[in-house]
């Protein structure tokens, strides 16, 4: 077989257009579109007293101005709570344009449409909004103390209390030989894709239909939301995700106000309208993630084995809860990692603050959970005088314990049952890769150079590929071209390549013949979206199953023609042939032609399928009962529950005691995402994830002041890593196939970012001998930490700058 492509580092087919400037991102679409722009709240919490748009109306080129008063029907209702949950007792969402109150800086208040963006912003400058300022709640501690409320009718600021337990934790802690407790913080960062959000809408008046392009991770659901909010029938709305310049979670949230308002304006004005988010808008009106206060109590025995774990988390969900409590649930359930935790209780208070909403950013609560668990492991090691790797080894779930049931409920509403894994194998590989056992020699060498060297590690388990489902459609054309579509979207993960690899492998056709479309509701209407490391698992299996359906039909038709048993046939390089009998074959493209009985011929190939082309069995209908014309098949993959990938990271940091600069000099990754379709792409995902992990550990934070003003809302001040900040990453692989899906896949997209802060915090502690209680940590904070006289000093922050 020459078409075996599964597992090969096939070069990406997306790249040809992207390296020549021929990609088609949102802002590249609709050069004649009107431009929308938004006036956004300058206050974190205020009542809108008056909006005066009259000074703007004489701006030449201004076409329309919209405020809340212009919204009708469902558009005047609050935005949807996308993922309701019984424990989300006080869900709150904003309106497409603010109604009476603004709850964070950046909330949209007025939309204008003009001939171009410059003119639109001229008009915005002239609109006068009068606000009455209200008390501001910033940071998880201020929300917890609840001196002020973000929402009048939620006086304690608690949107949800999420609670899970696997036993009676208090007696288990009381019975534990040892216990330790600590409180720590994790800061806000954000997905920060290089392309901001954007929406382009075109209304077809004659057809009363809408076509919307949006830089989204969930086109089918955006379509449903637009149809509902604009009161259009679903078939009158098409939504397409074009090339998307990165997502990392922020574009899974929907409908963003702009995804509704831009189509609304296009319909009202009868003209294309486009909005492209600028970077400042992205900082103050898209989404952030990660701030939590974590109170951890762990019980353990003399050998460092955990006996009980009690975790209480305060999670900052920002001003609204459109995405429900997914992030808190993920933290709560993924926190346990690869370890046996005999009794576990977790309580998460998800609290409102007057800041940008908090929704999943790559990792989606897992980095925080990993931080809690792994810091506990390090502390147990220190208390018991044990090696940190050894403590982890003693607590790992063993290879013969799978499937392993944690008795928790995951973000998909399904049980947290680890399907497969080899965590001891991960640890063994990691220790070898980073030369854990010979580190003291390196430390001594660095000390001789006047540097503090430290090493740290962290392990994780990641629930990937959650349902409910994805689908795939595969169709062979008479030309031999194979069309593949799936509703799930792409933001740079190489889906066109990976899905083409899978279909070419399954069907036995050259990869060049396969064309893949993702995220286009015209091609596939049923989908969930790209998030939670699910694309390869969900759509990968769906397109593979669809290809298998096509193959079965092709073999059946070819068997009739060749007068052989379908079981004796195979497809190789697009040729259906009798196994072991050269010459007895029929091209797959001919099978495709024959699959569709024709009355009319339109080209040479089609003549073969017309009604006088050859002797047929005139006792049977041309299309058999239960059959359908065409060589195509649609199938779906819907998993019973998520599949659990895993990994282990180690970081070596070198610290200069003159500047306290923290340099990550080595970074080692061992990862296990089951069977690998394209190792080149998986390694690329790991590299990118690690860079975001390093950014989250050392550089990135949202610096809100007490008034709720984001002080670093630019790339000048929000420090994303350049190449100079990202260490070289060494990677080792382990493949423990998932028994849950036909291809044995587990997700890989988010893995790289998860253990970054935990591993780097561990390494810094190891280098300087002081406890770290908040991440990220800057050189200044590290300096403050080490110069303090106290024996057990921790750095603690409240999430508020200044």
């Amino acid at each position, binding site marked *: 077989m020459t078409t075996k492509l599964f597992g090969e580092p096939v070069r990406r087919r997306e790249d040809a257009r992207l390296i*020549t400037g021929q990609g088609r991102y949102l*802002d590249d679409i609709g050069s004649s579109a009107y431009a929308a722009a938004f006036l956004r709240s300058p206050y974190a919490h205020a009542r809108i007293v008056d909006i005066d748009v009259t000074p703007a109306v004489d701006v030449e080129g201004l076409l329309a101005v919209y405020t809340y008063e212009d919204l009708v029907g469902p558009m005047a209702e609050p935005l949807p709570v996308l993922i309701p949950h019984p424990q989300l007792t006080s869900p709150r969402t904003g309106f497409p344009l603010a109604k009476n109150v603004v709850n964070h800086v950046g909330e949209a208040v007025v939309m204008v449409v003009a001939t171009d963006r410059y003119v639109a912003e001229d008009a915005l400058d002239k609109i006068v909004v009068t606000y009455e300022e209200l008390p501001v709640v910033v940071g998880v501690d201020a929300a917890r103390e609840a001196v002020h409320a973000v929402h009048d009718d939620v006086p304690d600021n608690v949107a949800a209390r999420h609670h899970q337990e696997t036993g009676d934790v208090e007696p288990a802690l009381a019975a534990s030989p040892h216990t330790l407790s600590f409180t720590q913080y994790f800061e806000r960062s954000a997905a920060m894709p290089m392309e901001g959000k954007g929406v382009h809408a075109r209304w077809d008046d004659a057809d009363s239909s809408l076509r919307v392009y949006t830089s989204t991770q969930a086109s089918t659901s955006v379509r449903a939301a637009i149809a509902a909010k604009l009161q259009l029938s679903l078939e009158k709305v098409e939504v397409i995700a074009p*090339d998307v310049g990165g997502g990392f979670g922020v574009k899974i949230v929907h409908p963003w106000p702009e995804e509704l308002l831009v189509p609304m304006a296009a319909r009202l004005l009868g003209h294309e309208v486009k909005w492209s988010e600028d970077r400042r808008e992205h900082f103050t009106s898209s989404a952030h993630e990660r701030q939590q206060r974590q109170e951890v109590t762990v019980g353990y025995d003399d050998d460092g084995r955990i006996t009980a774990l009690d975790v209480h988390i305060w999670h900052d969900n920002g001003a609204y809860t459109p995405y429900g409590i997914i992030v808190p649930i993920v933290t709560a359930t993924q926190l346990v990692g690869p370890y046996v935790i005999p009794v576990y209780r977790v309580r998460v208070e998800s609290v409102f603050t007057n800041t940008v909403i908090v929704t999943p950013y790559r990792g989606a609560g897992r980095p925080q959970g990993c931080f809690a668990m792994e810091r506990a492991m390090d502390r147990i090691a220190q208390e018991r005088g044990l090696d940190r790797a050894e403590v982890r080894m003693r607590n790992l779930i063993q290879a013969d314990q799978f499937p392993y049931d944690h008795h928790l409920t995951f973000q998909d509403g399904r049980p947290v049952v680890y399907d497969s894994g080899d965590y001891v194998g991960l640890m063994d590989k990691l220790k070898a890769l980073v030369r854990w056992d010979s580190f003291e020699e390196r430390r001594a060498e660095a000390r001789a150079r006047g540097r503090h060297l430290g090493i740290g590690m962290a392990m994780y388990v990641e629930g990937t590929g959650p349902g409910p489902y994805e689908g795939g459609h595969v169709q062979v054309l008479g030309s031999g071209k194979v069309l593949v579509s799936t509703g799930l979207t792409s933001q740079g993960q190489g889906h066109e390549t990976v899905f083409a690899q899978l279909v070419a492998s399954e069907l036995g056709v050259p990869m060049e013949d396969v064309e893949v479309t993702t995220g286009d509701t015209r091609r596939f209407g049923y989908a969930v979206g790209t998030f939670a490391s699910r694309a390869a698992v969900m759509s990968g299996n769906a397109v593979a199953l669809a290809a298998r359906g096509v193959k079965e039909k092709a073999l059946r038709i070819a068997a009739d023609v060749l007068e052989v048993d379908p079981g004796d046939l195979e497809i190789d390089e697009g040729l259906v042939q009798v196994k072991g009998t050269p010459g007895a074959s029929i091209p797959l493209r001919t099978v495709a032609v024959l699959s569709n009985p024709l009355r009319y011929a339109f080209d040479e190939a089609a003549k073969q399928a017309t009604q006088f082309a050859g002797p047929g069995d005139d006792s049977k209908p041309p299309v058999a009962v239960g059959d359908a014309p065409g060589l195509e098949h649609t199938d779906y993959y819907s998993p019973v529950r998520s599949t659990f990938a895993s990994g282990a990271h180690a970081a070596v940091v070198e610290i200069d005691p003159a500047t306290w600069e923290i340099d990550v000099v080595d970074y080692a990754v061992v990862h296990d995402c089951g069977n690998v379709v394209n190792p080149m792409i998986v390694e690329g995902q790991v590299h990118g994830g690690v860079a975001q992990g390093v950014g989250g550990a050392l550089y990135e934070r949202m610096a809100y002041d007490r008034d709720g003003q984001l002080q670093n809302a*630019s*790339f000048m001040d929000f420090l994303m890593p350049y190449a100079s900040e990202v260490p070289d*990453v060494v990677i080792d692989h382990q493949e423990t196939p998932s028994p849950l899906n036909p291809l044995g896949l587990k997700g890989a997209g988010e893995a790289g970012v998860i253990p970054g802060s935990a591993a780097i915090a561990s390494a810094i502690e190891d280098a300087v001998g002081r406890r770290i209680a908040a991440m990220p940590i800057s050189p200044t904070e590290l300096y403050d930490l080490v110069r303090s006289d106290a024996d057990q000093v921790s750095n603690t922050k409240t999430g508020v700058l200044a």
Partner: protein
Amino acid sequence: MTSIQTERTITVVLNGVSREATVPVRWLLSDALRHEFGLTGTHVGCEHGVCGSCTVLVDGEPTRSCLVLAVQVDGHQVTTVEGLSRPDHQGGQVLHPVQEAFRECHALQCGFCTPGFLTTIAAGLDARDPAVEITDEEVDELVGGNLCRCTGYANIKKACRHAAATMRADVATKAQDGAR
């Protein structure tokens, strides 16, 4: 009606071709490239000169097109990512070695920042002696000023070395051919 859209006509040698356009004087070069000349390969990531996605070559020098007004390039040469490849005289295009290297080394994922890296690295490689092996310091310098959120830079650095090696092999081949 109030308007502050004062316009001016500029002439630019854009990707080797002289082009004229009338643009508002306040327009950024990035706006003119994208919205007036239709060259949407130049991407705008931050509009404050930090990310480098919008980098183009003005008279051969990497320049952030979001920090330059369109009228400032009147009379100058501008090269965008669309202009990095060259005609092969058979109706096709020959990619710049760094474009080939990006594909070969998986140096892009979403591709949004890619044009800025390509123009910057291409200018750097074109300006150096291709016969000399590239150093790690040179690579760090070439990739160090642009932001990428997807790749973690490892494969971008790899592509940089790969392109330099290709260019080095090319001059070696040409030198051999010349010696024959």
